[in-house]
């Protein structure tokens, strides 16, 4: 018997992983949650059938969503993480002793419960004393915050389903309000490659650009995400990720990372021409 997990990347493209054994299936108030084990990627976690995290390649995503802003401003103390129920983003953040407080807002408590049980690799730091978990809509949470955070990381699902509100103008505007005067907003920015993803990417870029004076996009290669070519948004009220990075300071922290390094930091903002073009078109 062969068991395969298949994600439909477009109407005409499929991506499959051979399943060794299913570990969990459940339906929360918001979405279907599945975890299975595979030889190739270890434990794999999906929401509504869409790939979220695999044990084998999660380091790329979590390195890039956390270390880029942290190396740009070494004085970050208060962080808000939205989504990120698997815990990987918080795990990376807790490696910085300089961070004093992390609020994590995940709409779906069941996601966190399932990840604690089946993905200890990413969920291992959710009980760090600096971390406070909130189970509510990120849009609602951020609405009431003003001048409160140095960094907001939006580690969301795609903009269809419960993540929809996290790609809207009202969300980015409220994030702007919730950030301090030198605050940074980093978000998972979808993929430029397939048309549907590229549209979400353009929309997000256009909306963020309306609020933040610094608005850059950087990339990483994530094998299990559609097309493998994934983008992140870096928006800030003050810091430029390329000129404000203090390489020496970050390297002297001695953090061991599997993907991120300060050369990648400088290189990841260099984008292919077609992506640049998409971004320029989005701004018009």
């Amino acid at each position, binding site marked *: 018997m062969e068991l395969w997990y298949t994600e439909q990347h477009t109407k005409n493209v499929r991506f499959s992983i051979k399943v060794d054994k299913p570990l969990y299936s459940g339906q929360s108030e918001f979405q279907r949650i599945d975890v299975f084990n595979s030889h190739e990627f270890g434990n794999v976690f999906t929401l509504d059938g869409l790939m979220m995290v695999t044990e084998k390649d999660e380091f790329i995503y979590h390195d890039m969503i956390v270390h880029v802003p942290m190396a740009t401003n070494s004085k970050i103390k208060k962080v808000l993480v939205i989504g990120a129920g698997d815990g990987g983003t918080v795990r990376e953040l807790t490696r910085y002793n300089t961070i004093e407080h992390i609020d994590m807002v995940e709409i779906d408590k069941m996601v966190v419960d399932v990840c604690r049980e089946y993905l200890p690799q990413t969920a291992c730091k959710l009980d760090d004393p600096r971390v406070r978990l909130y189970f509510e809509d990120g849009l609602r949470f951020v*609405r009431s915050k003003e001048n409160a955070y140095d960094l907001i990381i939006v580690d969301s699902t795609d903009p269809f389903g419960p993540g*929809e509100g996290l790609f809207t103008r*009202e969300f980015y*505007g*409220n994030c702007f309000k919730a950030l301090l005067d030198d605050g940074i907003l980093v978000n998972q920015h979808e993929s430029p490659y397939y048309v549907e993803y590229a549209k979400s990417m353009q929309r997000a870029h256009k909306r963020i650009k309306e609020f933040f004076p610094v608005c850059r996009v950087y990339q990483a290669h994530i094998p299990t995400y559609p097309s493998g070519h994934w983008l992140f948004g870096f928006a800030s009220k003050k810091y430029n990720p390329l000129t404000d990075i203090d390489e020496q300071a970050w390297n002297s922290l001695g953090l061991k990372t599997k993907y991120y390094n300060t050369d990648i930091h400088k290189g990841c903002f260099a984008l292919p021409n077609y992506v640049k073009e998409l971004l320029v078109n989005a701004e018009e």
Partner: protein
Amino acid sequence: MVIERGAFMHLHRQDKAPIYEALERYKSMRVVPFDVPGHKQGRGNPELTEFLGQKCLSVDVNSMKPLDNLVHPVSVIKEAEELAADAFGAQHAFFMVNGTTAAVQAMIMSVCKQGDKIIMPRNVHRSAINALIISGAIPVYVNPGVNKLLGIPLGMSVAEVKNAIEENPDAKAIFVNNPTYYGVCSDLRSITELAHLHNMCVLVDEAHGTHFYFGENMPVSAMAAGADMAAVSMHKTGGSLTQSSFLLKSSRLTTGHVRQTINLTQTTSGSYLLLSSLDISRRNLAMEGKNIFKKVSSLANYAREEINKIGGYYAFSKELINGDSVFDFDHTKLSVYTRDIGLAGIEVYDILRDDYGIQIELGDIGNILAIISVGDRELALERLVSSLSEIKRLYTKDKAGMLDHEYINPNVVMTPQQAFYSDQHTVAIKESIGYVCGEFVMSYPPGIPILAPGERITKEIIDYITYSKAKGCFLTGTEDMAVENIKIVEES
């Protein structure tokens, strides 16, 4: 006798949906159609079939014996009507496919002939005044009063109704808007009692009140209050397709007479898409309505609390109740007063749509209104609330110079019918002061006329029209599509 809502509903029968079931049987019979409609279950119009879906086109069919006939129902439509009547606590329920507009007109035309008087508030929907043009009935307007802060018209005060009855003892009917667009309810029970005492019928435009029949802790419904007829827009908050509606009646009027009146203007090709949507929605509300509207209520209350927390906005509700012109309030309506942030409701309405991709029901000079219904989700409400918070942060203006809207007492010179059929000519609106208006001018939505045929045009009215236009209200009603000119009655 006061009939409590749902007291006689036979739940064990309400799980049936005779029209829907007949359509399912029809489909399974695989009938070869040599009748209209000519698309023949979609085959003749592939593009439309692709767009709407084969399932939809396959039941877009004509009346036939197994599916009954809306004009003269004897089988499945009759059964569906009986079930609907049972669900709404009415003596009879008519399925309407020409909108609630047709239901309102049928109500008025069933009780008013040429020259008969009908007592009504001026803030009725245009469909009611249209019915006066067709029937030749004479309106006796009751000033609904205005909430000064919000600028919204209120309900009918019992004392005002009493006065109108005493001054017009020959009136045939009293027409009540219940609830108003904004959710204001009148004292329907007392008005009905008073009307019946004077042998007048009570007709209720209950377009926005479907949920009163199914939810708990709702204002009293027209049928429960003893009214004689009610027009209920099932499609507004009940989940059926746009244009489908119910006309309910109690025992004072005969079913046959009302049906004959409906058939004067209603199509003879009643759409089975609309009919089945009414049937299925009635079943859904009868079975699940209590839970559905409990959720709707809690969503609306939650949104109100959150919006009021933002500051600058005022999402109003039951605190407006004053025992008279606001006898009760429909808390499922999410009405928000916006002028304290220096924006007209219509401006907030436009920003929500253009900048945030959120379409709400209406914006007027001072308020916006969002409809919360059977189909709403928490996540969408969070977007609305967060967008309002952003609009306040980004767009707040000085509120000086904003127009304060007062109720403008209409000066009715002739009946709507007389005016409509008089010789008329066109003048520029800004030069029309003093003339008698020959047509309608209104913002849409809500579709409540600023001017109706037969009313004297004043400077105040023109100022209001100009201001509404400048703020971006969508004005309609005039023959002139640009609403620059107006037709006036040639007075001899």
